[in-house]
Structure formats: C-alpha cells, structure tokens
C-alpha cells in the first residue's frame, strides 16, 4: 500500500492513501508538538474546546447538526503521545460522495467544517469564549479524575508514571487537574493560536480521493490561515534504563488485583530489524491466545482470565497486564518470569515461531482494512523519521530467526512491578 506525500507549503505535508476498499473518506489533520508537562493540559483542553463552536456553527448543537446533514460525518479530536512528541489530531470520517442522494457535497462540506473547527473557533474579546473555557475545564477535570474508574487502565497508567518518573513517558496526555486553575480563556486562546500557526502539520487522507483531488480539497482547509512553521520535528529514541527495579503496591476497593509490569528494551520502531525481532518475541511471550503467558498462566495454572503483554515500540518497552486473585501475586510473578526465561533461552518450537510470525503478519494485513490503522501506521513512521511500507514490514517479520527472538527477549530488562489490590501490606510481602 502506497502513501503519496506532497508538501503544501507553510509546514503542511499532505499524505494520501488512495484506495477503493472503503465506503468512507477519512481526512485527519495532525498538529505535531513536543510532549511537555507544562503544556500538555492546555493541549488536552483543546479537544473539547474546539468542538464547542466555530464560526458559522457557534454551538455544539449546531456543529453536530451540520455533521448530521453531511450524512452523519464523524468529527473527533484526540491527542496521542509518540515518545517525546504529542499529536493533536482532528479527524473526519464521512460517507463517500456516491452515497449522497440529495446533492450534498459531502467532502466539500467536511473540509469546510474541518477548517472552521481547526482554525476559526468561537472567540470573545481576543480569547476563547469564557463560558466554554470554564465548562471544558470542569469536563477535563472530571475526565482526569475518572481515570480511577477503570481499574485495569488505571494500573497501566500508574505503571507508566512509575516507570518513567519525570521523563516524557510518564506524562499523562490528559494533563493535570492542578494545572487547570491557571488557564484563562485568553491564555488558552493565545496558546492555541501559536500552536496552530507554528506546529508542523501532517494531513492524511484515506479513501477514494486521488493525490490531486486530495491536494485540492485539503488546500481549502487552510484557506485564509496564516502559518509560520518552525520546521518539522521528529521523535527521539527510547528512554534510558532505570538503575534498580521499582516495586510498588497500592490499595483500592477492588474485587480483583490488577498487575502491571514494565520491561525496558532498546529496540524501537525506527530499528527496522530489531523492531521486527521484538514484535515476534513479544508475540511468543504474551501477545496472543497461544502465547506462553496465556497458555501457561491462564490455561495451565488457571490463575487468571486475562494475562497478556504489549510491545510499546515508540518508548521502547514491553508491558504485561493481568487481573489476578490478590493472594496469588507471588505465584503469578514467578510464572511470568519463567515464561520470559523460556523465550530468552529459545525454549519454544519452530511451530510456535511460525505461528507468531503468521499472527503478526495477519494483524498487519487486517489493520489495513481500517482507515484509522492505516493513518496510525504511516504517521508513527513519519514521526520517527523513517519510511516503511506494510509489505516491507511483513518481509522483515518473516525473516526473523530463532536467534533474533532470543536476542530480543534477553535484551528486556525488568523495570517496574506495579500491583493494585485490596490489601497493600499483604501484597508488599509478595512483591
């Protein structure tokens, strides 16, 4: 699958993936900036604020009514962290023009709406609307505090915070409740203006549009927008390793203990071959229903319902998550360590290796049935400053040998063990 790239000037780069497999067009406008503790809350606030109202559609209700008129176009704003970078994405998914039966120019309408949402929000006296700002601050505060509601996710977040400390990996992309008080409607607006005029922008289109058509359409999003871009920025390599292993237990009213473990690796997305090896090592270790963690910890020892691992290739980490009986922590920890040892020693048969590779390759191919996956694939590589295609990635995965897997697994070093449970004292004895 090809991604056609073209500079539109002013620090805006257009990437087009032309495909007729979807009934929808997807346009995603991505503002790229450094991920910083000082500014992350203000960026998070923009997600809600920019959707509250724009020139021509001054309320959320009117904006939503407009998206409905455009055949249920879906406009969303989110932030994502890529190592030391933060990306603010404004994404619209809308039906392809052929589904319009009343002559509505869907894609034209969507581009006009993206332009208004990104660059022409409702303002008052040189700032955002004070009323909207206040309301969005409260909503963001609620969102930040609601992090405790999902206990499994909460454990994963706490793991990141403990693992990376003050480093960028520990920064919460939702921001910090204590920073909200200092944000004013005017301050937020000035910050936003600087951001949308200076940040490099990567626009992705996925759908029936050709590169020429996409250029014509996307250019209209930037009509009348002044840009003064500082130049492109890229993600830097992963984190330094910690000196000693951190073991933390915390207490909450939970029925089931939530275990989260973090290992460091120096293999990151931009290391073509090492990245592929780590993908395969992680797959064998814990990333599928035939992995060692699933087969041993769940199926043989019956210690949990879920126990799996994930490779965080931008930050250089492999994390393990499991929901377990609070009294069985030490047995589970031992079993996980034993399974990692097996991967490190090459204690898996050729069948397991082949299955792991097939599973990853299938996952990549399946991902290309989703416009959002396609964008995330290409933007992650763009931000890391590498060019890659799914076909080349598949070839590298198929090329991974048994030795490559063992080497990748041996390179993992335990960094943090975090346990959320209902009895902290008892857990600490088992950690």
């Amino acid at each position, binding site marked *: 699958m090809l991604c056609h790239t073209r500079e539109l000037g002013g620090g805006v780069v257009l990437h087009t993936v032309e495909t007729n*497999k979807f009934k929808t067009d997807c346009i995603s406008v991505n503002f790229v900036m450094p991920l910083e503790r000082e500014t992350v809350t203000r960026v998070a606030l923009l997600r809600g604020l920019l959707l509250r109202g724009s020139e021509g559609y001054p309320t959320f209700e009117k904006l939503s009514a407009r998206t409905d008129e455009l055949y249920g176009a879906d406009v969303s704003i989110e932030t994502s962290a890529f190592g030391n970078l933060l990306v603010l994405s404004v994404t619209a998914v809308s039906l392809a023009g052929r589904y319009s039966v009343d002559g509505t120019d869907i894609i034209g309408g969507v581009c006009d709406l993206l332009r208004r949402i990104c660059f022409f929000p409702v303002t008052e006296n040189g700032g955002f609307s004070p009323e909207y700002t206040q309301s969005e601050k409260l909503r963001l505060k*609620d969102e930040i505090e609601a992090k405790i509601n999902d206990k499994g996710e909460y454990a994963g977040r706490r793991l990141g915070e403990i693992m990376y400390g003050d480093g960028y990996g520990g920064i919460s992309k939702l921001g910090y409740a204590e920073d909200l008080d200092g944000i004013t409607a005017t301050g937020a607006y000035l910050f936003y203006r600087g951001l949308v005029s200076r940040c490099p922008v990567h626009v992705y289109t996925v759908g029936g549009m050709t590169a020429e058509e996409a250029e014509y359409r996307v250019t209209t999003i930037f009509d009348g927008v002044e840009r003064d871009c500082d130049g492109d920025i890229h993600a830097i390599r992963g984190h330094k390793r910690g000196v000693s292993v951190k073991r933390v237990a915390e207490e909450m009213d939970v029925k089931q203990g939530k275990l989260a473990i973090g290992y460091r690796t120096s293999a990151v997305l931009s290391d073509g071959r090492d990245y592929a090896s780590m993908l395969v090592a992680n797959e064998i270790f814990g990333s599928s229903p035939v992995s060692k963690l699933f087969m041993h910890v769940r199926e043989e020892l019956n210690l949990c319902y879920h126990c799996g691992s994930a490779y965080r290739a931008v930050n250089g980490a492999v994390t393990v998550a499991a929901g377990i009986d609070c009294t069985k922590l030490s047995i589970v920890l031992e079993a996980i360590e034993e399974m990692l040892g097996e991967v490190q020693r090459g204690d898996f048969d050729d069948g397991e290796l082949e299955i792991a590779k097939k599973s990853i390759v299938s996952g990549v191919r399946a991902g290309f049935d989703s416009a959002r996956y396609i964008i995330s694939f290409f933007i992650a590589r763009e931000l890391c400053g590498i060019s890659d295609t799914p076909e080349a990635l598949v070839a590298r995965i198929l090329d991974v040998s048994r030795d490559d897997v063992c080497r990748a697994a041996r390179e993992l070093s335990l960094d943090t063990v975090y346990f959320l449970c209902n009895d902290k004292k008892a857990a600490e004895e088992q950690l």
Partner: protein
Amino acid sequence: MSSFIKRYDQYLDETYYYIKHPSGLEIYVMPKELSTSFAMLTAKYGSFDNKFAKKGGATAVMPEGIAHFLEHKLFDNEDGSDTFERFAEMGAFCNAYTSFDRTAYLFSSTEAHSECLALLLDFVFSPYFTHDSVKKEQGIIAEEIKMGLDSPYNRCFHLLTRLLFTDHPVCREIAGTEESVMQINREMLYSCYETFYSPCNMILTVAGEFDPDKVLSVVNKRIPRSNQRELPREHVPLRRTVKERRGSETAEISKAIFSVGFRDDITCVSGLRAMRRALSASILSELLFGQTSAFYGEMLESGLADRISASYLTCRDIGFAYVNGICDDPEAVYGRVIAAISDMKRRGIDRDAFARAKKGMISDLVRSFNSTEEMCELVTDCAIIGCDAFDYAEVLRGIGVEELEFLLCELYDERFAAMAVIEKNEKSDEEKESNI
C-alpha cells in the same frame, strides 16, 4: 449455483447469498474484497435460556452462567489440541462471546478461509467435556466475573436491568456468579448442548473471500442434514411493571455514574415490525438525548452531567431505552431527563432534526459495510429476529414522524422508569487520606 437466494442492494452496492441448509442452519454468504475475511456461527442460546423443558416434559433449571461456561468449554478438543492454536497455524484468530440471547463463535482470517470455516464448524459441533476440564474452567471464569465487578459501568447497567425486569432473566449476570458457576458440571453442559446446539437453532454468516458453493460444500461435509426440531424454550408471560424505581451501589470512582431506563412493552418479537420498532426507538433516543438534542446541550452548558450516551436495547421479549452519564447529583439529572421528555411530548418532534437523525443512521448502516466483522454482526442481528439486513434502509426510510410521536408517549412513560446509580465510595476516600 445451487439453490442460494441472491440479493443485491444498489444503494449499498453489496450482495448476499442465502440458503436454508436441510439441517435447518441458516447460511448467509457475503463476498467482499477486503484483506480480512470473517465468519460467525451463532447459536440462539444465551443467558436467557436457563430454564427449558427436557425430553419427557420435565423442566430443567440450570445454574446461572451456563451458556457462557459452555462457550468456554467448546474450545476443548478430544485429541487434546488447542483450538486457538489450530486457527493460529493458519494465521487466523478465533474468539467467542455469549450475550442474553446468543452464543457466537467467530474467526477472522487473511488466508485459508475455507479451512478456517471447516475448523470453526468442527470445534463447535464436537463437544468434549470432562470433569477435570470443567473444574479447571471454574477458576478462570471466577476471575472473569471479578473483572466485571470491578467495572462500575457494567455494574450500573446490570443494576438497571434488575430494577426494570424483576420477572425476567435479563436481570441475571451473563457469566453467572462465583457461586453459580461452581454448581456447573459436565452432564449439565451436555444437556444444554444437546438442547440448543442444533443446526436449526443456528445461523452462519460469512463475509470476505468466500464462494457460496464452496461454503455449502464445507457445511455439507460437517453437518447432518436432518435433526430439525422445535426448541423447548421457556416462555414467561411478562407484565409491564417496574416496582423499584431507584437502586444504588458504591464503588471507588470519581463521580456518580447513573443510568435512567424506560421499560418498553414488547408485543412483537420478530419480523419487520420488530425491526421497525427497534429503529424507531433508536431514532427517538437520538432525538431526545443524542449530541444534537437540547438535553445534551443543556447538560454540557450547565455541567450537571457529562459523558452522556443513550440507546435502545431490545432482545426477544424485552426492550428498554436508557440514558447514561456521570454527574454529582443523579436526582437533579433524572428531573432534567423527565423534563426533556415532557418537553418533546408537548412540542412535538422537530421535522428537520428527525430528517437529520435518519441520515445519521443511514450513514451508520453504510459504514458497517467497511468491515467484514460488522457485516456478519449486522446480518446475524437481523436474522435472529427473522429479518433481512437489506430491508434495514427501507424500513428506516418508511418511519414517519407521527409514528415516532406515538412511540414517544408509549415508551417514555415515567411509570415504567427507574434509575440505577453507582455512587462514589466516600469512605474509601477518608481511609486513603489517613494513609497519607
């Protein structure tokens, strides 16, 4: 092509092939050019079916959670092979889930699609349960149940169903309880399997790189042609009443989670009328509480509630509309929910908003054809109520505003409303502070 019925929809630009296999199995094949192919084999057997008449007439009452337990155990094979691994060898991924009215077994594949289909039929139609394997699964499922109890949103939903339906199995947890799964044994599993896993109680939907004739030949080799029979499902007559109007529990969360529900009076459980009612109720829920509604705007501006979502759920003989969110003062929000309904009853439904909401739903329909998985889900959903997914758009277009106004009065009747709340656990806050 053998006796498949072919249907093409011009607007969607999609085709399906349908056949009722001599065994009674309903088969839908949807050719589609995507990287992933998908198949779903669904038994019309879920957590609702705990009671049934055995051969000879006696009533069997099974422990709660048995349908879900059976789903887990069907993955075991007599030769000791691992079902996940057999799919993984072909680069495919298989899974299953149990809901109120069904158990679905599915896979997604990027190659060897027919072989995967054969494997799916093989494992679902070859039950193999032992005392040891049942015992082992009890531990795993107990952890799954505990995981559910740690989700306040799940708990709120279940609390609401318990308030609205004291007389129906919808109020029971799909996975059962830690106690009920301990009562499950091998014989019970076989008994449920024999009763409900008959091809005539099942639907197969496949989408992707599949050829109808080839699918049929895979099925022919694995499923006996006969075996059609009536299912001994228990039918409890229902009376539309809601006894308890409020229910609450606590959890360690940031703010209260609420769910206001309105119990529907279902008189028609299948066919186009059932589809029409479900679609009408969905439009109504969008108009009352969706993002373009006055209620949503009011909540956003007043800050009274946030994360609002609303929907309509129907399954066999039950249905209810609900609106969820987080807030500080659930009673105040409840008041606004009722006010929004009264307001719409008084003013009538806005014609433009109605037209927009329909457009949005058409869009959702078209989008589901971007994914072989969603295609199979949609077609299965429709098949379960005896409808055709390709009638969906037509039924939607045919819904009129007067009909919706009538439904508004009938469905959103406060006498049949209840509110479930998961309150913030204040005590644990104090404890935490004392620790610091």
